[in-house]
């Protein structure tokens, strides 16, 4: 397969973003996560901070309305810009890794898509979040719940399938079982198998 796109869905604290970064490095392809925001900012004239404010956020239904495919919600429009950007990148023949952004659904028409979902045990996720964000156990748990709730609402609003439902992804893996590094090794092998297979 000359082109391949790795989509990484993730639970907060599961190490999904780190895994995506490592996969991008190992396959020497770009990663679209924060970079996606910078690219869209450059294209539209919005500041990265403005995009970040509405990035992967579900819209407020009471304050939003949709008419003939147009929406007044800034969250909706930023999401749509990101989906279009990803589709354009995919259609250009570029290989890349993308984190979140409903990419497993929005890019599913591309045969070169390899969709992964990284989950983790709550205890391990809490430890990781406490460590990375220097939070107490309670605050780490609350942050995980809040972030995942938002991701779920965002995903389920923009896609037909449910966030984290294994049927949406080619491979769902619990990073707590093997640890982050061995999970990356496993996923690297899986991606290599997929690339060489076709």
């Amino acid at each position, binding site marked *: 397969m000359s082109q391949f796109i790795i989509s990484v869905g993730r639970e907060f604290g599961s190490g999904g973003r780190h895994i995506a970064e490592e996969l991008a490095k190992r396959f020497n392809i770009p990663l679209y996560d924060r970079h996606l925001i910078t690219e869209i900012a450059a294209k539209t004239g919005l500041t990265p901070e403005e995009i970040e404010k509405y990035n992967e956020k579900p819209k407020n*239904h009471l304050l939003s309305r949709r*008419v003939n495919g*147009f*929406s*007044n919600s*800034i969250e909706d429009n930023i999401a749509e810009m990101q989906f279009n950007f990803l589709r354009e990148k995919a259609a250009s023949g570029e290989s890349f890794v993308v984190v979140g952004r409903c990419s497993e659904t929005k890019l599913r028409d591309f045969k070169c898509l390899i969709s992964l979902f990284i989950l983790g045990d709550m205890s391990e996720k809490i430890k990781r979040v406490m460590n990375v964000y220097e939070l107490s156990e309670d605050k780490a748990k609350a942050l995980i719940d809040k972030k995942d709730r938002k991701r779920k609402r965002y995903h389920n609003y923009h896609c037909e399938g449910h966030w984290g439902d294994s049927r949406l992804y080619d491979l769902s893996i619990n990073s707590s079982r093997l640890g982050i590094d061995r999970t990356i090794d496993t996923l690297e092998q899986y991606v290599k198998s997929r690339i060489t297979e076709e």
Partner: protein
Amino acid sequence: MSAAQIFAVIIFVGMFIMIVLDKIERHYVTLGSGLLTLVVVFGICMRSGTAIMDTLALKDFATKEFWYQVTESESKGINWATIIFIAGMMVMVEGMAKAGFFRWLCMKIAYLVKCKTVPIFITFMIMSAVLSMFIDSITVIMFLAAVTIELASLLKFNPVPMILSEIFCANLGGSATMCGDPPNIIIGTSLGFSFFDFLTNTGLCAAISLAVSVIFLYFAFRKEITGGKGEAVDMSKFPKPSEAITNKRDFIISSIIFGLAVLLLVTHATTHLTVATIGLFIAAVTLIAFGKHARELIKKVDYKTLLFFIGLFVVVSGLEETGILKKIADFIGNISDGNVMLMIAIILWVSAIASAFVDNIPFAATMVPIIQSLAESSGVPISTLAWALAMGTDIGGSATPIGASANVVGTSVAQKNGYPIGWGRYCKRLAPATVIVLGISTVYLFVRYL
């Protein structure tokens, strides 16, 4: 309350909540709710085949009055005239858009004012209002906002104030005529008013309001729109208006059809042709004129909106047939205690406030039978209440980004091009402008009709 009334209210409230939540496409919501009304309210609770037949109103098509109306008459159930008229205008507008009419008009006007920011700002506001008198505001804003953004990038000005002003004026222009805004079509066809009735009543009020609004919006945004460097404009860099025309033959034909539609609408009280006939005729002429592209135009018609209307009319009929709307009318009559001034103010301002937050189409469809009942019980002319309802629903929608379709489309086009317009930015200028126009409308209604 009877079981039928309870179910009719539950279905109506459920439908409104589902529309607001936007989880399911709104035409599925109204069609599903309409089906529930037919089965549960009319079928199971009322066991009334007559109510079902009256609501479906299919026999209307066979009546002469549906197509050719000498005396004014009121309609009940599904307002097929509204649906046929909107469908016909959709076909015509698609033809005009395909030929490049709207883009040409915008570029032409920009050229005529030598691409200077302030004259563009003022002329685009007026054009937005005038076009919206005949064409749905979604189409008007879609093209105007896109051209505004294009001009903004060439002339280096911020397009947001201009887009906001165009949105406001589109809603205002829509209030001026019977076909300008869907609530007006519903009010006009349900209560038997003509295009001219609207033009000489709400139209006059809209004209006064437009003059005031242009001045208000200019002063509100003047710092932003005149903030450019004031450099001489190099007209050679701009796309020529003629480049917007995709096909000269189609352009001429669609312009003639548009002119014909305006003529038929303006004279329909004299010719006695109903809006259903005009809609059907305009659609037929457009399709014949576009020949092999006719299929393409038909495919582009927004069927979802038409289905949304059908479902909506059925649900509102549920409230009407069960007497719920009469109760609401009695309630308004009681709290105004025969005071006509208070009654008008309630209808105008409640309609405006409601339309600022919920879709004004279901609101207007619900209010029409209410004002009919109120007029019968209070003796106030139905026309006075109808103008108050039309002005309230049409203008109230301008106050928030979700109040009217044009607002959603305009803010969305701006956002997609890198100009986010949130609630704060939108309401800061347009909410006061809405209150000013509602104030003008209140005074206008009091002075002219009391």
